[in-house]
């Protein structure tokens, strides 16, 4: 692989990871019912995996969400976020390949994202941090966040694809 191709991949991954981190830290939608908030982390992860493919999604989605956890003061969740969001992006990107970008496939990709986030957090938190009865409490919130995020990610991909025509040329 030539070095200039590597430079492009490196900058693509770095900008994508920073995008995920900013979406997680800065773009929050308040939920008045729970006095909490939904971060747009999943929207960025889904957008990146659809736009730039599974490999970029895996690295950028994982590193970006882990960086957001580290910088946001929750370093204990960084490894879990890295695995869960990396896997989420990889699976969604794998399903929605360049030649299979139909709406039903994208919706299926979004459903896979939701399952990965809910199942991943539940499994890894039970294994390393807490127990099943405590981790299950977070599932509805995670499902809501990844569900809303996946829909926004899908819309974002369509909007950015329309505004920036060379988007597919960056795909790795």
């Amino acid at each position, binding site marked *: 692989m030539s*070095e*200039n191709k*590597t*430079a*492009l991949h*490196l*900058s*693509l*991954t*770095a*900008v994508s*990871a*920073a*995008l995920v*981190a*900013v*979406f997680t*830290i*800065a*773009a929050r*939608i308040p939920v008045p019912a729970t006095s909490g908030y939904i971060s*747009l982390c999943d*929207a960025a992860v889904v*957008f990146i995996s659809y*736009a730039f493919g599974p490999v970029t999604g895996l*690295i950028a989605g994982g*590193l*970006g969400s882990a*960086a957001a956890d*580290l*910088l946001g*003061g*929750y*370093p*204990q969740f*960084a490894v879990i976020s890295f695995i869960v969001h990396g896997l989420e992006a990889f699976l969604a990107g794998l399903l929605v390949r360049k030649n299979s970008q139909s709406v039903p496939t994208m919706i299926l990709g979004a459903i896979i994202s939701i399952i990965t986030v809910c199942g991943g957090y539940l499994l890894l938190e039970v294994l390393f*941090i*807490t*127990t099943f*009865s*405590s981790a299950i*409490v977070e599932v509805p919130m995670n499902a809501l966040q990844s569900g809303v995020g996946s829909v*926004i990610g899908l*819309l*974002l991909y369509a*909007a*950015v694809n329309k*505004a*920036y025509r060379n*988007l597919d040329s*960056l795909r790795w």
Partner: protein
Amino acid sequence: MNIDTYIYGTSFYHRFDIRAKLLFTLIYCTCIFFIHSWHGLLFSVLVPLALFIVSLGKRETIRAVRKILPVIILLFLFLPLQDRLSEPVLSIKSVAIVTEDGLYRVLRLASRFTSLSLTLMLLIATERSERIISGLRYYHLPYKVALLFSLILRFIPYLGSVFEAIKDSMSLRLTEGRRGIPIMPSITAFAVSAVKMIPDTAAALEERGFGRKGRTEYSSLEKNRKLFTELLFSVILPIIFFIIMR
């Protein structure tokens, strides 16, 4: 957006070499998972807590504990404090509310979570991110991965400020009488401006000699006798702690 987690200080933990600090963090966090005694659980929290107070002061310690507290409360609220087999510690009208094993299980999880969180928070609060990357380079983190980390840390505050500017300008575009932030137009404009940065960054990397020998190299950390002592301490201390406390 301010992403600097480093808190200035002159404590001994601040002055501790990053390579030793990384090793200590790794070994200590691993040991936490294998400690099962009551006093071990208590001391596994007290050690990072004491280090936190000594290195960063009471205010920062309270701030860190506040971040952990909601999860601890959740643990106590949603985990059963009783089981059928062990001795009751607290019972009301012959109904066991808290049993020994139930309490132990919750305390073990709470202490593991707290000590893990405090140890990792301590690492990122007492060391600058570029030093952490240099420390990881010492442990053979590949050059391209280190460069990727550096670029991510460089881009997060920049993209954060771009997002804030876009968000503000989008909210000014709202029709009179309406307030708030139009989320979709803001994130679309932000994502487009971020994507446009990718080819420019790649060109800048090539311009600065990416891939050519002798260019864009990381400065390596110096080796000295103090490092050997600190590395030794960072291995021996958590192992002794584990042997005594398990």
